[in-house]
């Protein structure tokens, strides 16, 4: 009997180290399915972040480099500039990308580097033990905000997709989630589209994925999924923030120095 649903070729047989109810595993699978479907495994290089997904290469089975905290976009730039034929993706969490790596992500996106970023936003530092991230919600309790995040002291959570969406350089910036099959299918389409834009050498592409961290949120997996829906999604709306054709910005239209 033919198998109609199987493990992607681009995934190893290892069990993941992720906590029960964490959605990293689903997002890994969507990336692996995309690599399989596009037939690019032999020319794909992933970049693992610092954070819970540092061991992503134990599960996603293609060439991988391991980044320092926040530096994945610079490394992806280095790879892509010297080997434009390779398909390159960074897989980064919100502490990695939106805090220590904010400079690198903005400039890579602004240069229009032709790689793809999977940005997993769970509003907290996971691996270091549940500290406040730039994406932590107002009044959210973390190990460094035991009385809740105070916005008058540390500002409001950063909406990364919208922030990158302000860049004039064309790009594909979208926000998705994976809290139910309906959303997983949409996220899959977005991830595949992001890789296709890269394949076509069209633009930089980033898929922000609202994710869960039941362990550090102190919730059951079910409650965590509900919390994404009730708390994160109203502040971080889903959908495309920017597609490459939405703004026909050319140097001529913007005016040039000459």
């Amino acid at each position, binding site marked *: 009997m033919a198998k109609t649903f199987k493990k992607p070729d681009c995934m190893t047989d290892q069990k993941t180290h992720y906590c029960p109810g964490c959605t990293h595993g689903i997002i890994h699978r969507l990336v692996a399915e995309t690599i399989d479907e596009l037939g690019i495994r032999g020319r794909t290089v992933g970049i693992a972040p610092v954070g819970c997904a540092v061991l992503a290469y134990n599960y996603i089975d293609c060439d991988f480099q391991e980044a320092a905290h926040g530096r994945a976009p610079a490394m992806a730039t280095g790879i892509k500039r010297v080997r434009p034929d390779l398909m390159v993706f960074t897989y980064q969490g919100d502490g990695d990308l939106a805090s220590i790596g904010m*400079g690198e992500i903005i400039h890579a996106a602004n240069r229009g580097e032709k790689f793809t970023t999977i940005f997993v936003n769970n509003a907290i530092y996971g691996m270091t033990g549940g500290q406040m991230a730039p994406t932590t919600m107002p009044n959210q309790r973390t190990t460094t905000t035991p009385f809740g995040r105070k916005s008058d002291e540390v500002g409001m959570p950063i909406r990364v997709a919208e922030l990158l969406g302000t860049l004039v350089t064309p790009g594909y910036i979208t926000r998705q989630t994976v809290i139910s099959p309906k959303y997983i299918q949409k996220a899959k389409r977005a991830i595949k589209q992001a890789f296709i834009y890269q394949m076509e050498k069209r633009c930089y592409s980033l898929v922000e994925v609202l994710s869960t961290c039941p362990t550090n949120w102190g919730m059951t997996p079910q409650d965590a999924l509900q919390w994404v829906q009730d708390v994160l999604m109203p502040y971080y709306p889903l959908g495309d923030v920017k597609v490459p054709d939405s703004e026909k910005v050319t140097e001529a239209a913007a005016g040039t120095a000459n």
Partner: protein
Amino acid sequence: MPKVLMKGNEAIAEAAIRAGCLNYFAYPITPQSEVAEYLSWRMPEVNGVFLQGESEVAVSYMIFGAAGAGVRVFTTSSSPGISLMSEAISYLCGAQLPAVFVNIMRGGPGLGGILPSQADYLQATKGIGHGDCRLLVMAPASVQEAAEMVMTAFPLAEKYRNPVMILGDGLIGQMMEPVEFPDQLKSEASNKDGWATNGMDHRGSTTRNLVKSLFLDAEQLNDNNLILRAKYERMKKEDVRWECWNTEETYDALIVSYGTMSRVCKTAISMLKEEGIEVGLVRPQTLFPFPEQAVRQAAQKEGCRVVLSVEMSMGQMVEDVERCVQGALPVKWYGKCGGDVPTPEEIIDLVKTTLSSL
């Protein structure tokens, strides 16, 4: 190829291309920005890669990414910029990636100044980043030597799968001298299919490569450090370089000096010779590995009464000189690091005063 008159920074840029390195990422900083300016038009001529990054931090990881993808790549910077790159240099060492970093030193600490200095000696040779990491460090004393060291740096980086640093003072970058790029120093890049993330299709393999420096298991991390240590020990055996000057006959004092400072010392030694005072010189061309035996043997020469470490810093290399002399002779330091290079007259005065005080 005929000699051409070039500024040191431009010669360094051209030497990299002649060595077969067609990938350069950089961030501007005085006194070495001419390298980036030169390569911004020169790299496109040779279908190479030039990119100005947003910071030294980002640039150093572009180097990591490119080196990990298996190509020859280099960057240039100056002291404060190298401090920012030191994080990535540690990662490059840990992941065993070959790359070349050029530091055209300016004065410090902090913002310091933009004039020549040798005050990054300890950083380059002993404290380039966290963890047990070392660089092979070469110190040129002329524009010609800078070009040749850059050309040899790439195969050395590949031999050891480790970053190599060219440590030049600001004068090496800024002065103009005749230079030629010896054809025999051209080299083919080594095959990196065994470890580079250059794509499984590219290397015709069905197994993937990982470039990483994380070893959560204590034994594995220790093993990785043993591999690195073995490489650093091998550097000491196979790639230590130095020049001995005026050491054939006996001498009263020995000077250890490198880079631009060593040229001033040579002038002073020639002038002292006319007065009948003989001084020998050991000029380290590699700072790590340090020419330990050469310094020790030169200090042990009969008649030598004192060893002087003359450097454009507040006394950094002198720690290595003391280590080599092992208390057999007095070791003195002399130096400046505000940007003024000590003059031959100052060195002459130093030698005479020191000898008469013994």
